[in-house]
């Protein structure tokens, strides 16, 4: 368990943000941590689950930051499925 900074982009938002996550967080939590700073703030919330994309690949919800091979300050794109 360690603090892990990533660059988060929420689909429909205008800016790349610094998002502190935990290296043990699964992608379902990472998605919420990114969405917290954009959905309902500048992007209209939608029903439906979120997904995380890393280097063009959708990461499984249960995969952790470490398991997925995410490096510090990698870009994670989060959006609705």
């Amino acid at each position, binding site marked *: 368990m360690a603090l892990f*900074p990533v*660059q988060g*982009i929420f689909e*429909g938002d205008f800016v*790349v*943000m*610094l998002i502190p996550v935990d290296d043990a967080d699964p992608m379902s939590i990472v998605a919420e941590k990114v969405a917290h700073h954009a959905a309902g703030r*500048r992007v209209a919330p939608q029903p439906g689950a979120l997904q995380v994309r890393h280097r063009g690949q959708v990461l499984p919800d249960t995969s952790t930051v470490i398991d997925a091979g995410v490096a510090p*300050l990698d*870009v994670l794109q989060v959006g609705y499925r």
Partner: protein
Amino acid sequence: MFWRSWHIFALLTGLSMDYYTPLEHRKHSFKEFMNEMVVKQFMDQFRDFGLELPWYWDDHFLKELDWYHHALHLGVWTWRQTAWWNPDAGVSPEERAWLEEKYPGWNDTFGKQWDVITENIRDGKPELTLPETFPMVCNMCQIPLVTPAGFLFGKLDSPEPLIVDRDGRRLLFCSEPCKWVYEQNPERFAGQLTIIDRFLSGVIQPPTVDGALAYMGLSPEEQGQDATNYAWAFVNQPARQIAG
């Protein structure tokens, strides 16, 4: 250097012309002003001196005239607590109509983001318009990375910033020209730290927005706030019933 001056100019003049100047006093949009005054003059000068235009002219510079300063405006307004002035939102219904006329596509992109902001203000939730984290920042121009806005506006192929890993350090760039300027002279810029570098290295304590405001020496009285106390969000709106 033209490219870096352009980004600073977009930040200072773009916001002022298209958002802060009252509608009745606007003669040109920022884009019209750039095209008629600056672009033409530069192109004449380049031609007169027999110089070629910089490589980034058409694909980067001219494309950014459509969207870049709109994203910076939204960024400055969002992180307004860090500004030393009180930023106007400049997005009342009439101002929005003008923006859409001057920048077709504004409503479908920036307008949608301002819609959510406006609803939060009307619903009495202005705290949702204040940030709880930081924007990532370009290691060259030091301006927040707004590549997602360029992507939404159809002017960039990807919302992601450019990344260069050099000497164990991860460098981020907002654009190909910023990356190019850096790489022309990496030693010169290596020591230049962004606010995010300072944050990640633990210089800013506590590592929060409040911590950063304190680091910047901004007391609550000095922090920027919406210039009109959100009056723009209520233009042409029926007065809301107070419950109870």
